[in-house]
């Protein structure tokens, strides 16, 4: 009798296993919809922004990858490389069309919905063209606050999605990830890191809506369209090119030539961070710089982490000669002075197409990835060697598992945590390195006029102790904040993976090693 019951129970349970995620949701749709409907709304209101970012990234990746392929294959067959170039043009054409199309679509937190640029109709008169006739500063502050609030909430909602999955739809009651997430959510310093990272990602994604003006209007082509302003001398509303307005709003370190933080210039334009030495809006400049900085450092650290992960697992799994070869290569790479390499490569590729992808950022990302992986590899090799000694690796070998699968399935989950820790700490070094290059200028770093943080610092270096202190100091503080945040995140992840291991000496080493 117990035979039959146990069998039917088993059949019962076996059926449960067949259930796909879809069926599990269909059986109990309420929690899913309670999460998914708001999520859809959240995405929908800013969909064109996300799509624009996605198309822009795809664009750069397509050009970068096909370009590299082209260069490699061009050595062998010119016909084939022509085909690749044609394909590149076609794909990029489609991407740009699509990008142009989504650009035209409305978003909720755009400068069209909450405009902050306007003009006064008379001295102390009401504002024309701003949101509800508010002063530009308030209109801008409202929009910026809404965007940050939206971004933070969206990030939280995505995390909520995982919680809903965990509580309602996941088959296992518990997985090791749960502990890590729980540890991290009790780690104040780590949470600060996550907060900072979200803040800067928001700047990268929503940068064009966050600035009081746009990079396009204020920096890249300031002589294409006039703006209205109230001319105090004539007492009338006049028109002026933003470029000309910039010329008269310079911050040059003296009392009469300075537009400081949180102030208006003579053209009724609000500057949250003040203006640059050439009269451009520093905040807009910083937002523009955030995007390129985040993209380049993400590409660089992603590439470095990928190489480091593969090599460290090879080192650990095969050891011996393979390990020695990688060790020698890594030492070779480390011995190249990074700055000299950057200068050299920048000079060599100065007029090459690859120097123009992402305004020079793609090339920088490749070089940073190339010079950073040995540090990550060194940091992760130890944990990889440790995992390779575990009995479950031997057990997997002993039932005939392929080396590739053993590395991916049984080793990678162990090193990915360490990889995240060291990667987030090394990213600080890359960001500082990028800023340093732009600071040096002269064909290094991101090519002007695309904003780059380091260039703002370099512009302001003559005025640090005068009224125009903001030009260098504010970008500098932003870099410090981001780098600190990334280190905090690294600390948080480390403590979350292994709550017992307290010492931070290794982490500091990695951060120092990653420093450019």
């Amino acid at each position: 009798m117990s035979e039959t019951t146990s069998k039917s129970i088993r059949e019962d349970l076996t059926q449960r296993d067949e259930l796909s995620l879809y069926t599990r949701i269909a059986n109990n749709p309420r929690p899913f919809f309670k999460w998914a409907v708001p999520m859809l709304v959240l995405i929908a209101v800013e969909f064109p922004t996300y799509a624009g970012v996605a198309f822009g990234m795809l664009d750069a990746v397509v050009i970068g990858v096909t370009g590299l392929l082209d260069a490699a294959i061009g050595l062998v067959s010119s016909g084939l490389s022509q085909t690749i170039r044609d394909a590149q043009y076609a794909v990029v054409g489609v991407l740009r069309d699509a990008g142009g199309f989504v650009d035209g679509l409305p978003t909720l937190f755009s400068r069209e919905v909450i405009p902050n640029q306007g003009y006064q109709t008379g001295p102390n008169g009401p504002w024309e063209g701003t949101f509800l006739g508010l002063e530009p500063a308030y209109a801008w502050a409202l929009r910026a606050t809404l965007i940050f609030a939206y971004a933070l909430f969206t990030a939280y909602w995505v995390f909520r999605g995982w919680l809903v999955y965990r509580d309602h739809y996941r088959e296992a009651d518990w997985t090791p990830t749960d502990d890590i997430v729980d540890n991290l959510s009790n780690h104040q310093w780590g949470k600060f890191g996550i907060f900072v990272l979200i803040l800067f990602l928001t700047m990268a994604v929503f940068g064009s809506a966050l600035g009081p003006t746009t990079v396009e209007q204020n920096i890249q082509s300031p002589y294409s369209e006039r703006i209205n302003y109230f001319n105090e001398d004539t007492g009338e509303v006049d028109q002026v090119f933003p470029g000309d307005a910039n010329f008269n709003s310079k911050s040059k370190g003296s009392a009469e030539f300075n537009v400081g933080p949180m102030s208006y210039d003579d053209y009724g334009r609000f500057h949250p961070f003040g203006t640059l030495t050439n009269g451009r809006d520093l905040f807009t400049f910083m937002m523009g710089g955030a995007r390129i900085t985040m993209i380049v450092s993400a590409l660089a650290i992603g590439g470095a982490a990928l190489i480091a992960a593969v090599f460290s697992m090879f080192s650990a799994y095969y050891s011996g000669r393979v390990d020695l070869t990688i060790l020698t290569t890594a030492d070779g790479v480390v011995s190249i002075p990074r700055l000299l390499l950057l200068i050299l490569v920048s000079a060599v590729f100065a007029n090459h197409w690859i120097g123009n992808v992402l305004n020079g950022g793609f090339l920088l990302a490749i070089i940073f990835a190339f010079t950073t992986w040995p540090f990550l590899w060194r940091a992760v090799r130890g944990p990889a060697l440790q995992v390779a000694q575990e009995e479950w690796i031997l057990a997997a070998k002993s039932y005939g598992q392929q080396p590739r699968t053993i590395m991916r399935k049984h080793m990678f989950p162990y090193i990915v945590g360490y990889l995240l820790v060291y990667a987030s700490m090394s990213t600080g070094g890359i960001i500082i390195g990028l800023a340093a290059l732009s600071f040096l200028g002269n064909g290094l770093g991101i090519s002007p006029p695309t904003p780059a943080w380091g260039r703002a610092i370099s512009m302001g270096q003559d005025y640090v102790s005068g009224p125009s202190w903001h030009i260098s100091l504010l970008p500098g503080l932003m870099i410090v904040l981001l780098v600190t945040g990334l280190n905090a995140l690294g600390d948080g992840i480390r403590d979350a993976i292994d709550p017992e291991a307290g010492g931070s000496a290794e982490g500091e080493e990695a951060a120092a090693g990653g420093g450019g």
Partner: protein
Amino acid sequence: MSSETHADPTAGDTEPILTVENLQTAFYTDRETIRAVDSISFDVKRGETVGIVGESGSGKSVTARSIMGLIDSPGRIMPGSSIKFQGQELTELSDAEYRSVRGSGIGMVFQDPQQSLNPVYTVGNQIRESLKINRGITGEEAVEEATDLLEAVGIPDAKRRLDEYPHQFSGGMRQRAVIAMMLACDPDFLICDEPTTALDVTIQAQILDLLKDLQEERNLSILFITHDMGVIADIADRVNVMYAGQIVEQAPVEELFANPKHPYTRALIDSIPGEHSRKEGLETIEGEVPTPNEPADHCRFAPRCPKAFDACENVPPQHVSVSDEHDHTAACLLYPEDLTESHRVEKHLSLANDDTEGDT
């Protein structure tokens, strides 16, 4: 199960499934060469359990790994070694060929059940992984099969426990799960490397019973490695006693316990707790197993041997038969007992010379 089919009636019980001959595994370091396994020979017949017993450092785990082809650099199996599994010479296989022998032919259960299962995957996931690689079973069928296997190793509520993580299993249950994972490859031959050492005594007995049952059901051959004479007495049919990379005595299990010949075996048996002494472990033998970093031109047990005499330092003892009725050999200069000391030494010397000549 298909276990009944492969027993060849003409070969019967005497056909060895595994024959190890003159196996030498050495580890090369900057300073020295460690002969972790130094020229050992033994065989395992179908359906039989052969034990290898010795202290830690005696080379028993290296023996197991050599058979599995899991010796990593700086370790190397020396030329002249031979491991034959079902007639196939394993030492000549490529990595890919070895992979197909592992699992589907030979399975291995490791010492620490805590460590043999990857903590980030569910137990079911890992059993299914093994099923997929070795038998190509996937999907729902794999779930069924995995459930059957967990039931076969005596895990209650098997279906539900498939979705649990290793740390949710107790030590004994985890070792059962590891055994299930190895059975998933449907091996003919199972190597158990101290599978019960990390478990407490009652659980240990249960796992041993499980192995005996599985052996009967599936006609498994088992090579059982342990330092524990009590466990060996319980499970093995024949025993090899290992010391410092060499086998010093070979005998059927009852014969070994009834008439231990080698001084080392005697010391091991004396040290079984509870019977003759109250002492734990191997405290009755003073000193430790030496690192076998020199060629075997003497008896490696001599520094600890209560019966050592001068020749022990200069003459490498060879296996000589020590029983008329049984297949019982020992490598000690005290045997054969009916000869005088000088004759014994001479006999061993000439056997050793024959051996080295045979090698070259």
